[in-house]
């Protein structure tokens, strides 16, 4: 359905896309992942020509859309795009946003546009907000309206540019649910996202983008569980593993908790489990171990999520004299830590500076 040939996009300071060649088939649901600045958004924005390729060709349904003579507007009407910042039309209410394009561009009658629009609003669960204005809606609601707006044009492919990145964690789920629904209906989609669990669940194909192009292209199982190429493997590992080192009692506690939370969200861990991880860290490391540490010390925390067991393994290792936190007098903190973890094990170790090791398993 879409064929991309030697696509290159060059900017004065960077060339995010050097040489992209790929074919996208009807019905594909493609997750596009990768580190920042690797051209993920650029790729889909080239497909609907919001960015103009420096060189190369893109064929959509047999038409060459990189050709100057191509009727861009007609091509775009068959493609939909959902933006990170929603981009609803602020001077129109919700139902008008959805009716606008079909009426103006497809020449649908007002009645027809209204009926179809309301139907779409119902599928995304926002029929009662039809007469509200965008600034009266929450982020999640805005994005769902945006999705309904693109659906109103009956596109053949929908491009999603980080659809949930600007959303509060509590609203990410409702939008992902709508997108999953569309995938189930067989719509062709390309989704740029940082939400790894979502990326894995929804797609039949994953692009890992790096080095100016599609570095690796495979099924979700291949990319996430069995990456073939080096950089892919490193990326996957990084998002699956959390690591942080603390060297002073005045470390950024709040920052630490925030990164731990981000790691948890990326891996799709439940909020409860995230709290448990944080509790284990706070009670064992901050409340029990740190008061015992004197002078210079190092404390390293790693957390790894295993999809098979659906559990997180948190390892805490620290330097200094041997000390088993499980034998601490601080019953209160111990109880809380034990409540949070399925199992906590302590052992002495000989790992560089680290002399103590705690392993906790959390469901």
């Amino acid at each position, binding site marked *: 359905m879409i064929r991309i040939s030697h696509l290159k996009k060059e900017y004065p300071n960077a060339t995010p896309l050097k040489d992209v060649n790929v074919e996208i088939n009807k019905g594909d649901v493609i997750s596009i992942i990768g580190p920042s600045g690797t051209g993920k958004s650029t790729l889909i924005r080239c497909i609907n020509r919001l960015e103009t390729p420096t060189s190369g060709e893109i064929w959509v349904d047999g038409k060459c859309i990189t050709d100057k003579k191509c009727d861009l507007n007609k091509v775009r009407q068959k493609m939909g795009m959902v933006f990170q910042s929603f981009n609803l039309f602020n001077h129109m209410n919700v139902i008008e946003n959805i009716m606008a394009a079909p009426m103006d561009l497809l020449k649908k009658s007002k009645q027809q546009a209204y009926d179809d629009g309301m139907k779409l609003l119902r599928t995304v669960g926002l029929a009662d907000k039809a007469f509200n204005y965008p600034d009266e809606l929450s982020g999640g609601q805005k994005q769902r309206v945006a999705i309904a707006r693109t659906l109103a044009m009956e596109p053949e492919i929908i491009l999603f540019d980080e659809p949930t990145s600007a959303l509060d964690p509590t609203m990410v789920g409702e939008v992902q649910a709508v997108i999953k629904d569309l995938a189930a209906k067989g719509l062709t989609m390309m989704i740029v996202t940082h939400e790894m669990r979502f990326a894995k669940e929804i797609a039949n194909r994953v692009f890992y983008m790096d080095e100016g192009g599609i570095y690796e292209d495979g099924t979700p199982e291949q990319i996430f569980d069995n990456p073939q190429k080096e950089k892919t493997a490193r990326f996957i590992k990084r998002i699956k593993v959390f690591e942080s080192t603390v060297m002073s009692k005045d470390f950024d506690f*709040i920052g630490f908790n925030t990164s731990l939370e981000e790691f948890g969200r990326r891996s799709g861990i439940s909020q409860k489990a995230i709290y448990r991880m944080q509790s284990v860290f706070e*009670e064992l490391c901050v409340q029990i171990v740190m008061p015992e540490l004197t002078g210079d010390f190092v404390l390293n925390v790693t957390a790894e999520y295993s999809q098979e067991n659906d559990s997180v393994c948190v390892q805490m290792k620290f330097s200094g004299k041997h000390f088993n936190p499980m034998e601490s007098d601080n019953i209160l903190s111990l109880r809380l830590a034990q409540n949070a973890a399925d199992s906590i094990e302590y052992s002495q170790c000989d790992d560089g500076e680290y002399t103590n090791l705690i392993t906790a398993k959390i469901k």
Partner: protein
Amino acid sequence: MNINKITNGNELAIALEGRLDTATAPRLEAELNQSIGGVEKLVFDFASLEYLSSAGLRVLLSAQKIMNKQGKMTVKNVNETIMEIFEVTGFCDVLTIE
């Protein structure tokens, strides 16, 4: 964490929003030190409390001790996770939970 205080004569209602942990507990402690004098009824509303650690529990304990002499303290709108914490630590016997 947001601390919302409402004073009504000698009654003090405190609603907590967010996390009560090592970083935020000192703030609650300071607030209580400032306002607890002369209070006969202290009510904590935990409806928007997301996370509670040992640091928070300690502040609650000292407040309970003070109120035991001055009047009464209750904790209300406790969610499942927080309730579990109270049970596991035995705080459900120390605090009056509604």
